[in-house]
C-alpha cells in the first residue's frame, strides 16, 4: 500500500536521528579538539602534566590520572555496597521490604548531581578534614560522593540480573546442602556475572562522566594527587571550570579534553554492549 510505504519512509528518516545525533556530536567535538592534539603531539598533550593555558601549555596527564583515581575509588565503594544491597534485596530480605525498597532506591537515582555534590561539601568534606587531615576536598571525598551516586543504578541493574537467574539454580544448590550465602557467591554470582559486569561498567561510565558533583568536592587543583586525601581535578571538571572564559587554543584544548573523555566512554560502552549481548544470548540458550 502506498500510504504504508510513505509512513515507513517518514518513520525511518526520523529514526535515523539517533545515528545522526551521535555522528554530529562526535564530528563537532573531534573537529574542535583534534587540531590541538595533532599540533602539540599526543605525547605532549596526554603525557605532560603541565596545564598552563596562559603560557600555551596544555598537558592533561594529571586530569586523566585524577579521573581514573576518582572513578576507581567510586567503583570500589559503589560496587561493594550496591552488590551487598542487591544480594540482600533479592535473597535475604522479606518480599514486602524488597517491594518497598527497590522503587525507593530507583527514585533516588533522580536526585540532582549538584545536590549530591552540595551535601558532600557541607557534611563529608569537613568530616574528612577534621578526622583524616588534608583540605577535605579530595580524591576520597569525590570517590565517596560518586560511589553513592552510582549506587541506585548499579543496585537496580544487579537486582535485575540476580532476579533473572533461574529458580532451579537456587533450588539445586540448596538441595545439595549449600547454605544460602554459599548459593549466592558460588552459584548466583557466577550465573548473573555478565549482568553484574554490565552494571559495573555502566556505573563506571556514570562516574567518569560525572561533572557537577565532582567539581564541588574534589578541590580541582592542577597538580596530580599523590594520595587519597589530596585535591584532584578530573577531565570533566577541567572542561566545566574553564569553558566559561576560554578562547582560542585554550578552548580547543578543552575540547581536546572532551575528545579524551569521549574515547574513554566509547571504550566502556563497547565493552558494556558486548557483555550485555553475550548475556542476551546466554538467556536465550537456557
Amino acid at each position: 500500500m502506498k500510504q504504508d510505504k510513505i509512513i515507513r519512509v517518514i518513520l525511518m528518516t526520523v529514526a535515523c536521528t539517533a545515528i545522526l545525533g551521535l555522528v554530529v556530536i562526535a564530528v563537532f567535538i573531534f573537529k574542535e579538539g583534534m587540531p590541538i592534539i595533532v599540533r602539540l603531539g599526543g605525547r605532549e598533550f596526554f603525557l605532560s602534566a603541565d596545564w598552563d593555558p596562559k603560557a600555551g601549555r596544555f598537558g592533561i596527564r594529571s586530569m586523566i590520572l585524577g579521573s581514573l583515581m576518582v572513578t576507581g575509588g567510586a567503583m570500589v565503594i559503589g560496587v561493594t555496597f550496591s552488590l551487598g544491597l542487591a544480594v540482600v534485596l533479592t535473597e535475604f530480605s522479606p518480599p514486602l521490604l524488597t517491594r518497598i525498597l527497590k522503587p525507593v532506591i530507583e527514585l533516588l537515582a533522580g536526585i540532582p548531581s549538584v545536590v549530591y555534590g552540595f551535601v558532600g561539601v557541607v557534611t563529608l568534606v569537613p568530616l574528612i578534614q577534621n578526622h583524616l587531615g588534608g583540605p577535605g576536598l579530595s580524591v576520597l571525598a569525590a570517590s565517596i560522593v560518586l560511589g553513592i551516586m552510582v549506587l541506585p543504578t548499579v543496585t537496580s541493574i544487579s537486582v535485575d540480573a540476580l532476579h533473572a537467574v533461574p529458580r532451579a539454580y537456587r533450588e539445586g544448590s540448596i538441595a545439595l546442602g549449600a547454605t544460602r550465602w554459599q548459593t549466592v557467591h558460588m552459584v548466583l554470582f557466577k550465573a548473573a556475572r555478565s549482568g553484574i559486569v554490565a552494571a559495573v561498567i555502566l556505573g563506571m561510565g556514570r562516574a567518569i562522566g560525572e561533572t557537577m558533583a565532582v567539581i564541588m568536592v574534589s578541590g580541582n587543583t592542577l597538580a596530580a594527587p599523590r594520595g587519597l586525601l589530596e585535591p584532584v581535578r578530573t577531565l570533566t571538571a577541567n572542561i566545566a571550570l574553564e569553558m566559561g572564559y576560554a578562547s582560542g587554543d585554550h578552548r580547543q584544548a578543552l575540547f581536546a579534553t572532551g575528545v579524551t573523555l569521549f574515547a574513554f566512554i566509547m571504550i566502556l560502552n563497547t565493552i558494556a554492549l558486548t557483555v550485555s549481548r553475550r548475556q542476551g544470548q546466554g538467556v536465550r540458550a537456557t
Partner: protein
Amino acid sequence: MRLAPVAAERLVVAVLWIMAAITVGVLFFIIAFILAHGLPHVSWGFLTQSPGKMGREGGIFPMIVATALVAGIAVILAAPIGVATAIYLTEYTREGRLTAAIRFGAGCLAGIPSILYGLFGFVFFAITLGLGLCVLSGALALALMVLPTIIRTSEEAIRAVPPAYREVSYGLGSTRWQMVTRVVLRSALPGIVTGIVLSLARCIEETAVVMLTAGSAMRLACSPFDSCRPLSLHFYILSREGISMEKAYATAAVLVIVILVINFFAYWLVHRFIGKAGRHV
C-alpha cells in the same frame, strides 16, 4: 581458621544487612538533610519573586520559569522523535543493519556524559547555528541527551503489547498505521508516558549541559532566544560562589521535591497501568 559454613552464613548475612542499611540510610539522609535545611526558607514569596543582589535576596521565580521552559521544550522536541523511532524499530521493520545501527547510536548517546552534550550544544547550537547561549540551545542539547531514554522506554512499552492485539486489529481490516495508532500506542501509552516523564526529570536535574548552553541571566526569559538560568544552575552558582547558603538550601529543597514528585508520578503510572509486567527504568 575456616569458619563453619553456617557460622560464615550468619556473619555474612549480618554484614550484608549492615551494608544495605548504611546504603539506604545514606540515601535517605541526603534527602532529609536538604529538606530539613531548605524547607524552612521556602515560602510563597520565594517561589514567586525575582532574585535580588545576585540571588542573595528575593526568590527564584525566573529560574522556575527557565527550568520549565528548557526542560519542557527539550521533552517536546525529543518525545515525538523518540516514540517515532520506537514505532519504526518495533512495527515497521525487521531486525537488520539499519536497526542495529539505530540501536548502536541510541546506546552510545545514552552513555555520553552530560558535559559532552554541553560542549556539543555550545559549539553546534550556540555558535555554529548562531542561536547563542539561550533557552533553545539548552533545550536542543537536552533533547538529544534524553532521546535514547525515550526510545528505549517506548520500545519496551510497545513490545509489551500482546501480539494478539495486532492480529485482531489486522483481522478487523485495519491498515498497519491504524493498528499502530489505535491499538498499539493506546495500550503502550502508560509505558511511553513514564519514559517521557522520567526524561523530564532528567532534564530538570541536569546542570552541566545548561551551564554551557543556556547562559546564566537571572532575568525572566520571555522567548526561546533569551539567556536563562535554570534552577539547578542557580543552585550551583549560589552554593559554589558562597552567595547565600540559605537560598541555596531552599533552591535545593525545591529541586529535590520537584524531582521526587515527578519520579513518584512515573512510578505510580507504571504500577497503576502496567502492573508487574512493566519494568521500572
